[in-house]
């Protein structure tokens, strides 16, 4: 294995600047159907260079793990070359320690929106939305601190009762003995209610937040998604609505919600409109997509692992540990991207200034050189809190404790009510290399 590792790295010579580089053909076979076994066997044997792991197919079918296992073993820092107009090529960082090294080196690896931001696909150059996750120090720090108090320990303690009462209400309203969509009735319902509270947004219009979240992470190239211009129009509409809230709150006493916090903090009160929009998108997606998909993922994993479900039913005290394991195993955001500010060497590979570097949290969370049996879902895993899903360094998830609290309360209340919740069929997944999530998952609670 060691020899193979070395060889692979040597053959990975980079395309740079005007140097013409003989690109291997980027042709993926057309598969007659998206049968998981067929796709997995292709990923297990195709030349590494032939695969574009950013292709939504590998995410919609949840087959990408096969490729990442190969990268971790054969080429842990690997360059995926340009794919026509989809992307200009990027480095894959796949192992735990390398992801940690990039995530904590803010001097070399930038999050700056003007350089493309924090996802594999660059922001539209004519529609740059600055947001604090896509800023470097020092501006990042002052903006992040403006919203930090919303998830302070004290604030979370104040939310606990509200979260619990809403969770009970939602669970008590679920049908018995009939099939329903868990994503819609539980995951979206709970996260949108929470998000409306955080923003001081009218509860009756909470699903608009879900809609904007979905639009901002949607892929304009995919059929059924809003195109680039339509997407921009929808987000400008969101900005308009939030600007009305802002104007109401900027001259009023602070109300403790995110809009009020941004309007009153000297670091954020004079943000240009696009920056206000950027931060809205960040906070909406951050508070919505992620927890939503861990809520769905947890139930799915327990169904796929009946032994773990039985363990949980026998010992409700495992909930807290299980929550961390769910978040690891789901990895609701599969990656974060950085841009190299200078030439640097990472894991023996020369990264050039300007290169796009993608940290695959979803792969680092399955690195068996750091984690014991990482491909298994183990609710009483030792040190389950040590996972990559929240990221590390200054951009680490600001809402991590809130997410954990929401999931903990949900599972405590589920266990009080339902002996079992049955997943009826494979869930429908989001076709995205960024948001690792579920569109729907049909379940039934026995009557």
């Amino acid at each position, binding site marked *: 294995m060691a020899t193979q590792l070395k060889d692979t790295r040597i053959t990975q010579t980079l395309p740079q600047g005007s140097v013409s580089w003989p690109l291997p053909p980027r042709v993926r076979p057309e598969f007659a159907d998206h049968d998981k076994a067929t796709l997995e066997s292709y990923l297990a044997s195709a030349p590494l260079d032939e695969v574009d792991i950013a292709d939504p197919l590998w995410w919609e079918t949840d087959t990408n793990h096969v490729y990442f296992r190969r990268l971790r073993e054969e080429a842990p820092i690997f360059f995926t070359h340009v794919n026509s107009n989809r992307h200009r090529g990027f480095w894959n960082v796949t192992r735990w320690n390398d992801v940690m090294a990039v995530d904590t080196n803010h001097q070399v690896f930038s999050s700056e929106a003007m350089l493309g931001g924090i996802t594999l696909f660059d922001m539209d150059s004519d529609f740059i939305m600055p947001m604090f996750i896509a800023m470097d120090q020092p501006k990042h720090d002052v903006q992040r601190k403006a919203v930090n108090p919303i998830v302070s*320990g004290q604030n979370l303690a104040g939310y606990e009762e509200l979260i619990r009462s809403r969770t009970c209400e939602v669970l008590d309203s679920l049908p018995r003995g009939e099939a329903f969509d868990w994503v819609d009735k539980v995951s979206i319902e709970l996260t949108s209610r929470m998000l409306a509270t955080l923003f001081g947004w009218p509860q009756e219009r909470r699903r608009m937040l879900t809609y904007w979240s979905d639009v901002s992470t949607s892929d304009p190239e995919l059929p059924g998604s809003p195109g680039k211009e339509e997407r921009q129009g929808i987000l400008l509409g969101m900005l308009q609505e939030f600007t009305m809230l802002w104007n109401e709150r900027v001259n009023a006493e602070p109300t403790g919600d995110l809009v009020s916090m941004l309007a009153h903090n000297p670091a954020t009160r004079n943000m240009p409109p696009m920056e206000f929009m950027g931060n809205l998108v960040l906070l909406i997606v951050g508070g919505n997509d992620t927890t939503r998909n861990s809520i769905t993922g947890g139930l799915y994993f327990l169904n796929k692992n009946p032994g773990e479900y039985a363990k949980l039913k026998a010992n409700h005290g495992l909930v807290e540990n299980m929550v961390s394991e769910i978040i690891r195993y789901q990895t609701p955001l599969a990656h974060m991207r950085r841009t190299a500010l200078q030439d640097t060497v990472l894991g023996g590979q020369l990264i050039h200034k300007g290169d796009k570097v993608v940290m695959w949290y979803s792969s680092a969370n399955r690195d068996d050189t750091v984690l014991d049996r990482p491909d298994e879902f183990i609710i009483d895993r030792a040190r389950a809190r040590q996972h990559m899903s929240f990221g590390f360094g200054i951009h680490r998830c600001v809402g991590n404790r809130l997410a954990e609290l929401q999931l903990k309360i949900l599972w405590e209340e589920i266990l009080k009510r339902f002996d079992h919740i049955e997943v009826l069929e494979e869930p429908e997944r989001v076709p995205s290399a960024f948001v690792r999530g579920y569109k729907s998952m049909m379940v039934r609670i026995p009557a």
Partner: protein
Amino acid sequence: MVKIIYVEHTGTRHEVNVPDGENLMEAAVQNNVPGIDGDCGGNAACATCHCYIPSEWQALTGERSELEDSMIELADTAQPNSRLACQIKASAALDGLEVHMPATQH
């Protein structure tokens, strides 16, 4: 072995004998001291082992690194005497050190 006393926000004390050279986050986690999480495994990259060092011990526990400083500054419970326990290694000089914990970790 070096005696370290972890003091919870409520005042509850936990005395732990820490092997020389081990960092104070690791020692707390290994001994199930509540209030120290250590999510990043000791890289100063998450601030979930945030603690306060009494003034008389500060010279002996050293200075914050750049990353440690950034992470602490983003915690809402940060104080001038804040440190990350994972960045402090047990040594004979620290025998009897009191490490105080915030009400919650971020």
